């Protein structure tokens, strides 16, 4: 029942009445300026820094020394020359993957229970998932130091995974719950009516439809785990070094900033690749969902 004005028409319409173009820049300008200065420029500097050499006392060769003579691929040569780095990237990937899979397994029953609860109880159950998340990140890690210490499990890969799952679990529950909540119960009834048992109904209907939720939850878990340094540092042993620890080491302990920057760029690429994968998955899943609902 809409008239002539289609959405497109509206979007193209010009600003009128003297409010001209300037209102939009007054609104957009300050946050954009801030983020350009303190997010985009620093990010570009990391890229630039990765092509330079370490200074005498840590840090970088001063930028004032000019670009031409200070440009170097040393950091990357070093990074690619030593298999240790590739290994640490691979281990970080595996840890992130394991954390993500465990989070999916732990979050699914919970998200499902919440989605099927009566509306009044739902908000409370969601709040109960968020609440521990509201306690400080270090406090949550500290809790596991207390628990795992006496059990002699502290400073092991197991402790690292437990800590990672504990810190990131709500990120999986919430998108999954949001997805499952939207499922039309009639779909399961229809499947049952057409002869599917509970097992088949889950794997043929509920699970495929929940894939977008799983994808976005996975992105929210996998990406921060990949860059995490505090959990391995506090819960892991000397051998449990991930990309995050490596980066932190270069910036704060070894003061080899070019190498640290090159590692950061490696991490960024890994993150972007995973985010693209998850987004593509979510989009594909979403199309499927639209076709059903």
């Amino acid at each position: 029942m809409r008239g002539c004005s289609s959405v497109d028409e509206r979007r193209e319409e010009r600003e009128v009445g003297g409010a001209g173009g300037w209102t939009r820049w007054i609104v957009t300008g300050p946050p954009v300026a801030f983020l350009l200065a303190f997010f985009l420029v620093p990010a570009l500097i990391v890229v630039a820094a990765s092509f330079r050499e370490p200074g005498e006392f840590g840090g970088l060769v001063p930028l004032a020394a000019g670009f031409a003579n200070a440009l170097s691929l040393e950091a990357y040569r070093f990074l690619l020359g030593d298999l240790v780095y590739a290994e640490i990237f691979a281990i970080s990937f595996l840890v992130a993957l394991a954390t993500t899979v465990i989070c999916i397994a732990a979050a699914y029953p919970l998200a499902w229970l919440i989605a099927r609860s009566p509306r009044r109880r739902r908000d409370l159950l969601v709040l109960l998932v968020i609440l521990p998340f509201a306690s400080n990140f270090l406090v949550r890690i500290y809790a596991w130091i207390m628990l795992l210490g006496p059990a002699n499990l502290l400073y092991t890969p197991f402790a690292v995974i437990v800590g990672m799952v504990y810190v990131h679990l709500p990120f999986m529950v919430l998108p999954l719950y949001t997805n499952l909540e939207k499922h039309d119960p009639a779909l399961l009834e229809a499947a049952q009516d057409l002869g599917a048992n509970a097992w088949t109904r889950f794997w043929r209907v509920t699970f495929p439809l929940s894939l977008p939720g799983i994808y976005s939850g996975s992105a929210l878990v996998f990406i921060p785990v990949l860059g995490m340094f505090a959990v391995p540092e506090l819960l892991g042993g000397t051998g449990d070094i991930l990309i995050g620890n490596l980066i932190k080491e270069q910036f704060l302990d070894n003061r080899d900033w070019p190498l640290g920057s090159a590692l950061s760029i490696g991490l960024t690429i890994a993150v972007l690749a995973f985010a693209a994968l998850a987004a593509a998955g979510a989009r594909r899943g979403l199309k499927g969902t639209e076709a059903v609902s």
Partner: protein
Amino acid sequence: MALLEIRNVTRRFGSLVAVDRVSLAIEAGEFFTLLGPSGCGKTTLLRMIAGFDEPDEGELFLDGKPLAGIAPEKRPVHTVFQSYALFPHMTVAGNIAFPLEMAGRPREEIERRVRETLSLVHLEEKGEAYPHELSGGQKQRVALARGLVNKPRLLLLDEPLGALDAKLRVEMQVELINLQRDVGVTFVFVTHAQQEALALSHRIAVMSQGRVEQLDTPDRLYTAPASRFVADFIGKINLIEAEVAGNAHGHLMLRSAMGDLAADLPPDARPGARGALALRPELVRVAERLETLELRNRFAGHVKDLLYEGDVTLYTVEVEGGFVIEALLANASPGRARLFKVGDAVAVGWRHDAGVFIRG
């Protein structure tokens, strides 16, 4: 001088010409309607009057003064939005008071006028309610009250009845007519519903593809459509392709594939001119035998389909050569022996002045 004059206005969106050289004048006190299908440019035109959009070419004048460059808040023109656009965080009274507050009226005057306007739209009890507590019809009234409260020169209504159910629509139509008459504010009403336009308006501009096809009173639009588009868009109609043949027996003759037809022609129609005879179904008569129809235009055929609508029935009659004529008969006509059935052999006919010849 017209209250609002639209002079040669064009508005493009990329390659789409939404409004194409439209000129029209709206008189003070009128209930004026822009009627047309989705995408015809009527809402774009409305938004240019309100000031949310500016024409690429042409000009708009209110009381003889150009509107170009005047911000929406500076125009003595208010809009009733399709979605009502009531402020959700303000009460009904707060919504209605808003334009008065923006105009800087004193507090006592605001309170008095809000009260008056609330009673005008029969919502005296709802002043303290919030929009989400109202029914669709009540929201509609609040939107009207808000638009009218500080007596704008023009009230623009953008499909305001679109969101209401059929019964409520009819009720609101009656209220709109009364309201407009009582407050004396000029209404410019936009709709795609032809029945609504016919029922409400003093004058209607039928729009298609950005252009005004015909500007006329409702009865003129219905009985004398100037183009095939208007004929087809407003009400049901039979369009019979024909060509002017000449003069015979005091009226003009048309040649069509069905045979010769007698009709009243526009005085300037010359022999050989091509076009279509537009014929309203309710002016077509149906009889059991051809001889009982004492009309110049009559054809034998049979009932192909029928659509029973309670008070009336729409018969689709197929005549010789496969041509189809629709006829609308009142079921309560005295002396009607029976309703026809599908397959019945019947005859259809119409008076020579029943149809209108549309050129082109």
